[in-house]
């Protein structure tokens, strides 16, 4: 039994690794396609049919480029930066419940790598480590633009983590658990948290944009002011890892948002499928991925619509708008939860 457990987990880990990287790769493709469509262009269409091989071509190109390290850079930290960025993006997918349990080979297989009961705390811990990859990468480059990018990234991420955490607390209050699986189960069917906590979702979503350094919060890597920001000095696959980790982070944060606000793998009518657990499991995974892709689409849609913030506007939004909003929302939610529990 114990060996089966490890085999299951190992297979799941490998699958998740490949799926995250594959989705990240095709996010780059879809991002460029969508940018093209929004600007009345076609987007990449040369590599393969509809340009479907473009991410592979890009990956090969990244590997073939010269791997350059600046003379005055701190060599170890220079290598460590993209590694940490990629690691923190990937590791969060371990705690995400991807679907209901599969019944295979006479045993129940959980589609969650690490069933820890403080999943959401783990996620926030990893997100706060995420800034180190950028910070170390930007500092080790020994370049003023990289350092500016890194400083901007760290101040932005720390500011927006607060509002993000407070809006997550409201979700914890109404579902009564830190366990992501329990949070998902509490939103059974169409009982999604978005209907109870639209304000928390709005704050969380804006903060997720800022945490993943996506436009309109892409100040750490803005091309026209900081010529790439923290990855100015990076080349070859180290640059590739930075760019990739951004897309993996986008994927994972979409997954977390789907769990916290859109019921994770829950879908209306899932009670009629309990006679066939495997079918239910497969459909639940598919539904979860559809939710993730819809959120990713909104991420990209926003990127190609809204221009970048100025830095003081960014700080104003984070500290003076989102944190008070999240706090008021948390107080009101707490009040209502307390009333509900004492009266009924």
């Amino acid at each position, binding site marked *: 039994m114990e060996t089966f457990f490890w085999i299951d987990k190992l297979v799941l880990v490998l699958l998740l690794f490949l799926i995250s990287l594959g989705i990240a790769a095709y996010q780059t493709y879809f991002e460029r396609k*969508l940018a*093209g*469509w*929004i*600007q*009345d*262009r*076609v987007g990449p*269409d040369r590599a393969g049919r509809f340009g479907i091989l473009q991410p592979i071509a890009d990956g090969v190109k990244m590997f073939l480029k010269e791997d350059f390290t600046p003379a005055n850079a701190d060599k170890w930290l220079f290598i460590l930066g993209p590694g940490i960025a990629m690691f923190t993006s990937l590791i969060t997918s371990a705690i995400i419940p991807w679907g209901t349990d599969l019944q295979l080979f006479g045993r129940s297989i959980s589609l969650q790598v690490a069933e820890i009961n403080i999943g959401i705390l783990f996620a926030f811990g990893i997100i706060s480590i995420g800034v180190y990859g950028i910070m170390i990468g930007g500092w080790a480059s020994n370049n003023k633009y990289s350092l500016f990018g890194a400083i901007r990234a760290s101040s932005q991420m720390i500011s927006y983590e607060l509002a993000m955490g407070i809006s997550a607390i409201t979700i914890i209050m109404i579902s009564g658990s830190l366990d992501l699986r329990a949070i998902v189960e509490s939103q059974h069917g169409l009982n999604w948290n978005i209907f109870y906590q639209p304000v928390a979702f709005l704050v969380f979503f804006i903060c997720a944009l800022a945490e993943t350094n996506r436009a309109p919060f892409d100040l750490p890597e803005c091309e026209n002011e900081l010529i790439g920001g923290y990855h100015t000095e990076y080349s070859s696959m180290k640059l590739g890892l930075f760019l990739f980790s951004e897309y993996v982070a986008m994927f994972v944060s979409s997954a977390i948002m789907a769990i916290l606000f859109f019921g994770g793998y829950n879908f209306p009518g899932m009670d009629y499928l309990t006679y066939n657990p495997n079918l239910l499991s497969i459909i639940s995974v598919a539904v979860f991925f559809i939710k993730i892709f819809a959120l990713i689409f909104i991420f990209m*849609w*926003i990127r*190609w*619509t*809204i221009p970048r913030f100025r830095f003081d506007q960014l700080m104003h939004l984070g500290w003076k708008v989102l944190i008070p909003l999240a706090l008021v929302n948390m107080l009101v939610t707490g009040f209502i939860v307390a009333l509900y529990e004492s009266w009924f």
Partner: protein
Amino acid sequence: MESLTNRKVVVSDKPMTFMEKLYLPGIIKGMLVTFRHILMRRKTIKYPEETREFAPVYRGMHVLKRDDQGRENCTACGLCAVACPAEAITMTSAERTNADKHLYREEKYASMYEINMLRCIFCGLCEEACPKEAIFLTDRLVPTQFERGEFIYGKDKLVEPLDERIDITKRQFTGKRSAI
């Protein structure tokens, strides 16, 4: 002063209303605009596969015409080279031998004829200068190359092949002789 157009907008500096300060309605409006563009028709012309429709008077890559018996019209008089404002054309002449009578229409012909397509400005003055109706500009495009040398077109690329004659009638409205 009376304005010439109606495009003038008076800038107002009024304070923003609460709805405007929320920014979200504005953001949603903007996102709907971009979403509408996703559904719009693309305006791209995928160049190597499809080309833009040319105007009838388009001046593209040159051709050195042959007459209806397949003999080269060019007599290497050099008028095109003289007329060329970009000095893109050069040639050397040679005398036709009896054995070559089926190849060249008159006694003198161009043994070498080169146009530097990087210098050429496609003005069409060579075509106007030509007394023998030998050189014409066509609606074909000069393809891109990686080396500069490959843009110097010799007779191998300029003279029209016997088996696939190049139609130049599209922009020759007036009674020029060797249309095909």
